[in-house]
């Protein structure tokens, strides 16, 4: 919503979104979330709170999990962004997505894109997390429907599906 004052000062930002190079002309303080949703028509990231509390807008930026409502687009110059739209593999569900689907990890679905990206990020860093590590890894993502139990099951199932990275590399 900071776009108002910056209406006439446009910035050109080059970034990579889901492995695709994109160039956007935008007010420099426009939120990454709004650029994704309005300029790039990637509506998978949701606005839940607009202040970095709920994680519904979470995306990966250079491999880090960030709340896109708190990132001015200026900061994404040259960055690699991955959104929920970039998670599926060759149009097939990513194992994490498949596990959320099978385990009941998604109810209303509004927190699900952020929750799946948080899970992706967690499993990249800790391929076989303990329950406590899952609870901590996801505690920036609020879910009002599930009480988180089925989400934990989804994460555990996804971790079990993936061979630990140390063994494959």
């Amino acid at each position, binding site marked *: 919503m900071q776009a108002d004052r910056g209406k006439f000062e446009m910035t050109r930002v080059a970034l990579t979104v889901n492995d695709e190079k994109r160039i956007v002309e935008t007010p420099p303080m426009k939120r990454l979330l709004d650029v994704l949703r309005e300029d790039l028509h990637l509506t998978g990231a949701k606005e839940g709170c607009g202040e970095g509390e709920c994680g519904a807008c979470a995306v990966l930026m250079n491999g880090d999990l960030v709340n896109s409502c708190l990132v001015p687009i200026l900061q994404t110059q040259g960055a690699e962004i991955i959104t929920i739209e970039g998670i599926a593999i060759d149009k097939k569900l990513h194992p994490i997505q498949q596990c959320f689907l099978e385990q009941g990890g998604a*109810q209303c679905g509004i927190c699900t894109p952020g929750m799946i990206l948080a899970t992706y990020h967690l499993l990249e860093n800790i391929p076989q997390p303990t329950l406590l590590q899952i609870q901590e890894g996801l505690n920036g993502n609020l879910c009002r429907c*599930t009480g988180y139990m089925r989400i934990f099951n989804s994460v555990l199932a996804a971790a079990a599906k993936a061979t630990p990275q140390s063994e494959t590399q």
Partner: protein
Amino acid sequence: MTNRPQTVGSSPIRKEGRDKVLGRAQYIDDITLPGMWFGATVRSSIPRGRITSISFDPAIPWHEYTIVSAADIPGENTIVHLTKDHPCLAVTHVNHCQEPILLLAHPNRAVLPAAVAAVHITYEELPAIFTIEDSEKKEQIIWGEGENANTFKTYLMQKDQKPIPDEVWQTADYIVEGEYRTGAQEQLYIENNGVIAEYDPEKGVTVRGSMQCPFYLVHALELVFNLPAEKCRVIQTETGGAFGGKEDFPSVIGSHAALLAMKSAHPVKLCYDRAEDMAATTKRHPSRTRHRTAVSKDGKLLAGEIDFAIDGGAYATLSPVVLSRGTIHAPGPYHWPHLTVRAKAMATNIPPHGAFRGFGAPQSIFALERHMDKIAKVVGLTPEELRRRNFLGTGYRTATGQLLKDPVDMQHLLTRALEESNYHAKRKQFDAENPISTIKRGIGFATFFHGAGFTGSGERRLNSLVEIELTAEGRPRILVSSTEFGQGTNTILCQIAADALNLPYEEVLIAQPDTTLVPNSGPTVASRTAMVVGKLVERAAESLLASLAPFLPPLLNRARSRAAQYTRTQFCHAALKYLAQHGSLKTEARYQSPGDIFWDDNTYSGEAYPAYAWAVYVAEVVVDTTTYSAQVTNFYALQEVGKVLHPILAAGQIEGGVAQGIGYALYEKCLWRNGHLANNQMTNYIMPTSADLPSIHVSFEEVPSPHGAYGAKGIGELPMDGPAPAILNAIEHATGLAFNEIPLLPEDIFERMTRIPTSSTEDLDPIIDRDTQVETSEVSA
């Protein structure tokens, strides 16, 4: 040919789940229509007063904006729920902070906040009231007059329609009194309220958006626009959580957006941000419950007087029916020889409270289940034994005189729940450890029921209709106004139809609710969808099958045994043959009240609900006497909800409800300042995160009910009822302190524990009898 395994009772993939995990599900804010503008709302900044002037800051290019005031409303200036007290837009007076006064629309969303701030409204302020007590005083009358002054609704519910005889009080061994309070709670769906409206002078109004009850909004639009129902089209879009918060409120935001669309001649999107949603939309009603109970020395409840009051906020909204459910649930799953419940919903200058999962029951059940532990203490029984001596069972009559014909076995549920939670051993262990530790542990429980479906004669009035049609491809498609908002409506209704049609679950389709295409199967509320709508889906499916019978393989016309005697391909061929001959096929089923259900709204007696779910919830807590924080460390939820249609969805419902109940008890506080919600942000309104919740162990006792599809009863609201009292009972076990108000935050525990320095247990020594009527919850100085 083999018998196809039933899909009911298994856990197929959620119907719309794939789109959700892919991030493709289209919620309202994800949708853009050509030429769409954006809306915003100008709201009152004071809780009560007369509007004296409205001016527009000349710095804003107002000619670019559409501005709507009450004068633009073509029909009645009202948001209709049960009465017409609630204006769509304020005209001369405001009765709460954030009351809508003007609406703005502009092609650029980003300029709207500054424009809203540039509308200057002056008021002559009037004295405002913010509590049930202030409202009762009637020094300020803010709603109604005479008997109804400040009072939206009252009920008097008496066992056998008789007052409690005086001699019961005179001869009782004990009289136990207590007062219990619950706070407001925000639904906090992660998707805020939002809609997109269109207006066409010929076709009328179309509103799509996030909501539970499309036909409620149709009804609201009919009045605001003075249009017939067929010119008020409402389409539910994917809904990101609701919990009651999208039951009545979409009538407000939907009407507003439609007014802007009409005046601007553009589609208008009106989506609140979090701060606006929290400040302006409905919450759970705060409550105050007073109990006075006559008890015999062997722990039999002899008589109960319950005064139940809820704060309805500034307008009636759904308060009368919230009050009704709270009233009927106030006596709990116990046998009361004599009982009087006096209930009232009071007006305050707080934004109107509305529906929230549980709908009055969590409030009155919190009071009762805390009070039962208090009675146990007074009488000298364990909380378990006191309840065992008073449980309702099969063949008993409830407080409304309803005969419990279906099997009810609270004794067994309690035994099983206490075993599964290892309650007795833990209680002993904590009793032994607590005196030598600064970390106090406790375990407590609550026993309760929740009625499924609309209260009393409600289902008869709703007269719900369900249809199933064949698509051009020969697939069955369910047509209902029942909405999916995470709880699993789409999935369970398709499971039911699949089994009734003997088809694989994947074959059955369900239409997105659009009021021009689907019949009114009633609102998606009151734990009614699985039981009431599910049954109608089953019947409509049976009717579809009967129509197709001539086209299905022969020898198969023996009703139920027809199942499993054809393949999906044969079904499809039969369907296509039927369509080729007749063009289309749509069957329906309308609600039929069971013949033995009677309800009297005047005496508040009769069959309050067609079926009840029964439950025992056990909470384990730790209270840290250094930080004064209380945390739930383990939770056991055992319930009897009839047949479980989908085990994963059902467990998910219970876990999510328990999480909300834990938030209700220990975290979520609405902080009102001069009638304005001061903490209208997720930063300082604290809901449980993944790191705050204990393991939630869910178990079901399955006793199929004759009322619902395949034996299902209601499930959705039940888990909201039990956690708060179970947790506070556990905290009393841990600390010896009886806390009777929620939310219970560390500062409340601190205040109480430091009030009398050395006390960590309650002084129960004074003899408690009917002469002294000692208030036992307070530590005597």
